[in-house]
């Protein structure tokens, strides 16, 4: 024992010398277990796998490999091109990539294939632990922190940076084109974020637009912004927290008003397919509000004269001319104009709620074509368009939050102007460039200030200076400083200033704030206590919500929800309200998990969620009224955690049916970290449910593919996981029957483990929380670094997950573990060729 320990010590010490303290992570093995998780449902106690704390040679693995693997994977048979007998003669680090794959196969027990002799559970675990330990020793001896390419701000980061720099919220989709994503769906991967002339033009235009918005430009011409509400959004309830109680329908819009001036607000109501206005049978009171204060209340509807259109409103037969005209133009008067101060305000459009129902037979809610054609003459009108126009009349820049943030001083005379401009612009530039400025930086920006000042006033000068800052490569690119004189591949510590940006873009998808940058400039950020304290502070800050949208939604593929189009004949009640509610449930849930710092496994096991009336109805949960979301503790185990959330269940389904294979793949790839390979070409379609004779239930049909050897390899792993979720329909509704037969949600893994339904699956996954934590860490480190994860990162990933396990896999431990890891805090010196080639 003594000698290996010494060797490890030397390796670690040398690493400490190079990177200044990132190595202790790999050496911690024996902390006491953390206090029990605060998660409300039971998470099995954490039993970290024993860390084998001596460098392991492959010789210790030899017996098990010889017995179970080498029979096929040898230098004669070369099954799958793998020659384990030859590999065992070389140091593990020489073939780390292959050995990582072997470790994964052992961990998931995919190999040896069924039917061949397989090790028992203990032997599997032992072999995997030994191999992983060997790989870790090799990684410590020769660290590969990797290198991240120069990173362009993506659209989300740009928008957030503008918000934090200038207190201006802009719609990124209107300014910049969408960013490409990598195969895992992340949009912040440095090597993929390219630059083109079109994009550069976008950035230049955006710089102008943003600087004019932030400072105000009295020369701008009036513009009419259009806000459109989908016809498929049902507006029978209060439509948001920003609208008055007792209102129904409409929308609340956060709009930025560029100047103190007059603005016009015009509303158009929803028309059905043949352009008849909806709900014009009785008068309705529509209100236009600004920050909650009433601008105007207008009555619309109930004034149609002349012969009516036949009730079908099918468009083929018309009523009298007066009636027809009214039914197409009654909303022409919904307009108001008034003064508004510069800055962001909430424009609220809503109807006064009616407390009576029209007489007659209550109609069932209509969907699809029926909804698009029915005129609902006696129903509620909806808002379809809101136009905000301006600025009109006398204009002035006013004093919006953005100006308060920008104008740190205001010159009283000409002599004060340039010093004041210098102060304003250098403060902005330092924040935007995320580093101390050089005199050249300041002079460049001041040159633009002077040009602007010459042609206009002080504001114009600041505007031009700001435009230049927003077009600067130092703003748009994250370029890290590499110490001089390093050989390519040499490992060096990322300096504190660059570390500050790494942290802020990881946790906030934005620029560092002043406290973080100040610590970095003072050279203190790398100190473990400081770093730790900053990570915790940043996670408490609401800016860390960016992790939910930027990371969690993409990791779990929830961003696909926006594009889901369920078959309206089968899922006729699916509307935009449901789609929004699904997304909101998961967003609020994950946000809360992070905020309360639960175990990451609690994402799967929590016994609460967030619901509003629409979603609660969908789930069959009673006594929840109104459109606002509230936390709901779930009495029974069906809906707890992500697996019971309609968002997840919907994005893992086809438009017209569930898919056990898609759900199974989703679980394998995103939760268990063992994605099946892509399916082969030329797959025949699954037979539809047959009326007579043929296979009826999905289970019978799916059994076809497990009989086929080509399909079976993956489907025997995917399908059981998916079957357990079969009680959830393709839109996440609970069901007891499918295709006319009762749902059978029982399943068995290839190793014989039996489980039943979502509750059984949840227990099964909870017992694999280490796999889950490792999968999450792997995805998260890719997101944190903005690069693909390489096999050289795997030892780090395992180390972070293991350490987090000691702490109950709390979110903060995983996130802090990444922030303190070697790939995050160090880099391999650049040069050519790249140190680590992919594959």
């Amino acid at each position, binding site marked *: 024992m003594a000698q290996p320990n010494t060797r490890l010590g030397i390796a670690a010490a040398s690493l400490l010398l190079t990177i200044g303290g990132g190595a202790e992570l790999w050496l911690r093995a024996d902390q006491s277990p953390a206090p029990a998780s605060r998660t409300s449902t039971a998470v099995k106690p954490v039993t970290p796998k024993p860390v084998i704390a001596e460098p392991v040679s492959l010789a210790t693995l030899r017996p098990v490999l010889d017995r179970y693997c080498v029979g096929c994977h040898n230098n004669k048979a070369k099954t799958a091109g793998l020659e384990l007998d030859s590999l065992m003669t070389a140091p593990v680090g020489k073939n780390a990539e292959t050995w990582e794959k072997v470790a994964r196969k052992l961990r998931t027990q995919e190999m040896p294939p069924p039917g061949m002799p397989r090790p028992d559970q203990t032997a599997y675990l032992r072999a995997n632990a030994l191999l992983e330990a060997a790989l870790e020793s090799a990684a410590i001896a020769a660290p590969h922190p990797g290198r991240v390419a120069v990173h362009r701000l993506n659209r989300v980061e740009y928008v957030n940076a503008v918000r934090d720099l200038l207190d201006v919220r802009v719609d990124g989709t209107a300014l910049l084109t969408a960013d490409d994503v990598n195969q895992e769906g992340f949009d912040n991967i440095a090597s993929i974020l390219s630059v083109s002339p079109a994009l550069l033009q976008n950035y230049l235009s955006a710089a102008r637009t943003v600087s004019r918005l932030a400072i105000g430009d009295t020369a701008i011409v009036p513009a009419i912004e259009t806000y459109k509400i989908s*016809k498929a959004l049902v507006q029978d309830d209060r439509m948001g927290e920003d609208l008055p109680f007792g209102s129904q329908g409409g929308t609340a819009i956060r709009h930025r008003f560029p100047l103190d001036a007059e603005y016009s607000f015009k509303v158009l109501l929803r028309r059905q*397919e043949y352009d008849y206005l909806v709900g014009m049978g009785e008068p309705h009171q529509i209100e236009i509000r600004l920050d909650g204060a009433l601008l105007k209340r207008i009555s619309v509807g109930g004034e149609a004269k002349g012969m009516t259109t036949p009730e079908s409103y099918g*468009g083929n037969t018309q009523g009298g001319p007066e009636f027809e005209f009214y039914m197409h133009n009654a909303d022409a008067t919904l307009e108001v104009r008034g003064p508004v101060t510069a800055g962001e305000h909430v424009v609220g459009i809503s109807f006064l709620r009616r407390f009576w129902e029209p007489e007659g037979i209550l109609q069932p809610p209509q969907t699809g074509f029926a909804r698009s054609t029915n005129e609902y003459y006696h129903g509620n009108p909806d808002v379809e368009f809101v136009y905000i126009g301006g600025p009109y009349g006398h204009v002035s820049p006013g004093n919006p939050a953005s100006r308060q943030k920008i104008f740190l001083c205001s010159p009283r005379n000409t002599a004060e102007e340039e010093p004041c401009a210098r102060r304003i612009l250098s403060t902005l530039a330092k924040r935007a460039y995320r580093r101390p400025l050089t005199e050249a930086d300041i002079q460049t920006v001041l040159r633009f200030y002077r040009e602007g000042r010459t042609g206009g006033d002080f504001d114009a000068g600041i505007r031009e200076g700001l435009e230049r800052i927003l077009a600067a*490569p130092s703003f748009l690119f994250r370029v890290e400083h590499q110490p001089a004189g390093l050989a390519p591949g040499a490992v060096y510590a990322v300096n504190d200033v660059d570390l500050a940006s790494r942290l802020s873009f990881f946790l906030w998808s934005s620029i560092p704030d002043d406290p973080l940058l100040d610590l970095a400039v003072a050279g203190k950020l790398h100190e473990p206590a400081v770093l730790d304290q900053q990570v915790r502070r940043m996670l408490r800050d609401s800016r860390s919500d960016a992790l939910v949208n930027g990371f969690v939604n993409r990791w779990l593929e929830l961003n696909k929800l926006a594009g889901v189009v369920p078959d309206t004949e089968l899922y006729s009640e699916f509307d935009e309200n449901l789609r929004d509610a699904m997304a909101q449930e998961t967003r609020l849930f994950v946000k809360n998990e992070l905020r309360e710092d639960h175990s990451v496994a609690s994402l799967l096991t929590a016994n609460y969620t967030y619901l509003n009336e629409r979603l609660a109805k969908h789930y069959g949960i009673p006594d929840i009224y109104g459109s606002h979301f509230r936390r709901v503790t779930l009495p029974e185990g069906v809906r707890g955690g992500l697996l019971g959330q309609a968002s997840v269940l919907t994005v893992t389904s086809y438009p017209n049916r569930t898919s056990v294979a898609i759900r199974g793949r989703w679980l394998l790839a995103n939760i268990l970290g063992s994605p099946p390979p892509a399916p082969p070409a030329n797959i025949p379609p699954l037979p539809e449910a047959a009326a007579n004779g043929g296979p009826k239930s999905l289970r019978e049909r799916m059994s076809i593919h497990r009989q086929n050897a080509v399909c079976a390899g993956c489907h025997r792993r995917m399908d059981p996981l998916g079957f357990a979720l079969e009680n959830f329909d393709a839109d996440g509704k609970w069901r007891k029957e499918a295709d006319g037969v009762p749902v059978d949600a029982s399943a068995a893994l290839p190793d014989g483990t039996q489980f039943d339904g979502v509750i059984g699956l949840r227990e099964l996954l909870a017992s694999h929380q280490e796999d889950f934590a490792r999968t999450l860490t792997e995805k998260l480190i890719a997101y944190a670094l903005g690069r693909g994860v390489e096999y050289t990162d795997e030892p780090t990933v395992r180390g972070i997950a293991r350490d987090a396990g000691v702490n109950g896999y709390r979110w903060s431990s995983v996130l802090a573990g990444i922030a303190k890891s070697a790939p995050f805090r160090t880099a391999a010196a650049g*040069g050519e060729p790249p140190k680590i080639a992919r594959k």
Partner: protein
Amino acid sequence: MIITRKAISRRTILRGLGSVLALPLLDSMTPAFAATQKTAVNRFGVVYVPNGMIMENYLPKAEGAAWELTPTLQALQPFRDQLLILSGLNSLASPGRPGGAHAKATTRFLTDVSPPTSETWLDAGISMDQILANEIGKRTQVASLELAIESGETAGACDTGFACPYTNTICWKSANTPLATENNPRVVFERLFGDSGSTDAKTRLTRLHQQRSVLDSVGEELKRLEGTLPSGDRTKLTEYFDAVRDIEQRIQIAEEQNNRDLPVVAHPAGIPANWEDHVRLMFDLETIAFQCDLTRVITMMIGHEHSGMTYPQIGVPDAHHPISHHQKEPEKIAKVAKINQYHMKMFAYFLDKLRATPDGDGTLLDHMTLMYGAGIADSNAHSVYNIPIMLAGGGAGNLKGGRHIPFKDMPLANLHLTLLDQFGVHWDRLGDSTGPIDSRILSLA
């Protein structure tokens, strides 16, 4: 809306102030002002009108050169020589895909594929404007524009059992990708002219100089930055440099262009409240886009199928689609015919603009292939036989106008194949086509 500016003196140009409508700074484009080219450029435009037409008021009875100006065509009198009235073109349902008269009218118009009866499944075919855009669009800043006057819903179901894109767009990028139409002139303007505020030369040039000064300065900063980077990390910055150079070249080209009559459109605020103003502004933008060679393919839908637009300004307060089901009542027929006439009057405005714009050795209209028509004939019966189709413009020598050419039961797509051929784009089959019409019938060449 378009004000024609007087040419600016040569001295002004030499001072570098008054250069042309400067080229916008977007995707890869060649500096191809048509005027500087040896051979005339042909452009393609479509103007689609919804809910069919009253055929007896539209279609001339006489064939050949002696065709009479029908009531609906009155407004086109000044352009008679550059019009080809084509009759006998059909747009029948594809085999196995019946129903959905209005969905079919729109979807088939440029694809000649009928949509399947589905509220969710999108399956038509690539439309001929997009086939063209894929080819000739490579040479322009914007491959194609898909415009409309009404806003089109792209989600949900519209015609009975049909997804909304089937009634709301005539343009399909591929069989499964309908293209949304844009009806906001402001968005169109910004797409064509960026953030310069006006197509006025002086305004644009000021903005260009300002941008160049930012670019120059950014270039210096990049050079400083590049020096500090290991070579492997410079790729991204090289891309940035390439982009900077690309834009600078365009500015230079723009400044070197000879001055011409300049149409000026100020940055539109949004959609004009008045329908006629809206249509005119969109046609102005089309004209200027063609003139500056920003794109060579533009489609325009005056309305989507089922349009319930009312036209009280011409004495038709009734909604268009319901009244187009006129049940043979003379009063209703007369009103629909009025709408048809009104649309034609707007088209005449467009033709007038195109003819007033010099282009090379002729006018823009000489170098245009414009198709005007509806996807059904009489809306009352949803007739798909002998649908109203006209060609306007000289087609850069490919079209010899002034004639009414009757065909007999000819699939509309056969015409599309011929037009594609005239643009040098050979396409064997489009939807339900059976083979191209002989191009010489159109050109008399």
